[in-house]
C-alpha cells in the first residue's frame, strides 16, 4: 500500500514561491493562461498496512505530528491500495 501526501501553504498564507514562479511564467509568455500558482511538496510512502482506513488514520497522525506544520500548512492524503 502506498500513501501520497500533498502539503501546501494554507489559503490566506502568502505563497512567495508560488508568486515568484507565477511572475516568471508571465514573463515567459504564459500570462494569459496562468491564473494562480501554488507550490507545495509531495511525500510518497510505502506502507505496511492491510486496511486503507487504518492507513489513513496513521498517515493523518504523521501529518499532524511531523509532516505538516498546521500553523501555516494544509495537507491531503491519498491512499493507493
Amino acid at each position: 500500500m502506498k500513501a501520497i501526501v500533498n502539503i501546501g501553504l494554507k489559503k490566506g498564507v502568502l505563497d512567495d514561491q508560488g508568486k515568484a514562479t507565477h511572475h516568471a511564467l508571465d514573463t515567459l509568455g504564459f500570462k494569459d493562461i496562468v491564473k494562480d500558482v501554488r507550490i507545495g511538496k509531495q511525500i510518497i510512502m510505502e506502507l505496511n498496512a492491510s486496511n486503507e482506513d487504518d492507513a489513513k488514520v496513521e498517515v493523518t497522525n504523521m501529518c499532524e505530528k511531523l509532516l505538516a506544520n498546521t500553523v501555516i500548512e494544509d495537507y491531503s492524503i491519498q491512499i493507493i491500495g
Partner: protein
Amino acid sequence: MNVSVLQFPGTNCEYDTQYAFEKLGCTVSIIWHKETSLPSNTDLLVIPGGFSYGDYLRSGAIARFASIMDAVQEYASKGGKILGICNGFQILLEAGLLPGAMKRNDKLHFISKIVPLKVVSNNNTFLQKLDVNEIVKIPVAHHDGNYYIDDAGLEDLIKNEQILLRYCDENSQEFNLNGAVSNIAGICNKEKNIFALMPHPERALEEILGSLDGLKMLEGFLNK
C-alpha cells in the same frame, strides 16, 4: 552562571555561542542532542543557530523530536530560561514552545548582513539592559526568517508585550526585511522565560567585526 548549549547534527553556531557566554564570565557546556537530560545546574539553555538536520522537511521540524527535547520541554515547563537564536527560534516554533511559524523569506533570498533592530519591549530578563526604541546592530543570516502568525496571535503578542525586536533600516525606521508579520525579529512566550530571535547576538561581540551590541543583549541574562 551556567549555560547549556544544544548541539544537533548541522548546528554551526554552538562554539560562537560558547565563546560569547564565556566572554561574559559564564561556564558553558555543549549538550549533544542524543542526551536525555540537561545539567541540573543549568541557568540558561541556548538553542543556537545552524542548519539542524539540513533543514530537511522544514527548518527545525526534525530537531524538535531529538532525544534531548523531552528534557527541554520539562525544563521550559518549570520556568527555566531558554534563548533560541536563528535555527533555535525555528526549533522552538516547531516544538510549540513559542507561537507562530517560520516561512521562507519573501524575496526567497538568503539574507546575510548586519541589520539595525529596534527594542520593542524591555520588560523581560533578556532585554532589561536596553531601552525601548533603542537601536542595536546585529547580523542576520537566514533563509527562513519570514515570521508568520495569524491576526489573533499577533494581537496577543502585542497585548502581552511578547514582541522583543523589530527590523529597521539604516535610518532606524521600521523595515520589512524578509516578509515577517509586523517586522518581527524576536519574540518571547507569555510567561517570559522563553526568548527567540532570528539575528545572531553572538556574532556581534567585537568592534572590529562591526558591532558590540550583542554583548549588551546577552548581558541581560546575567542579572537574575
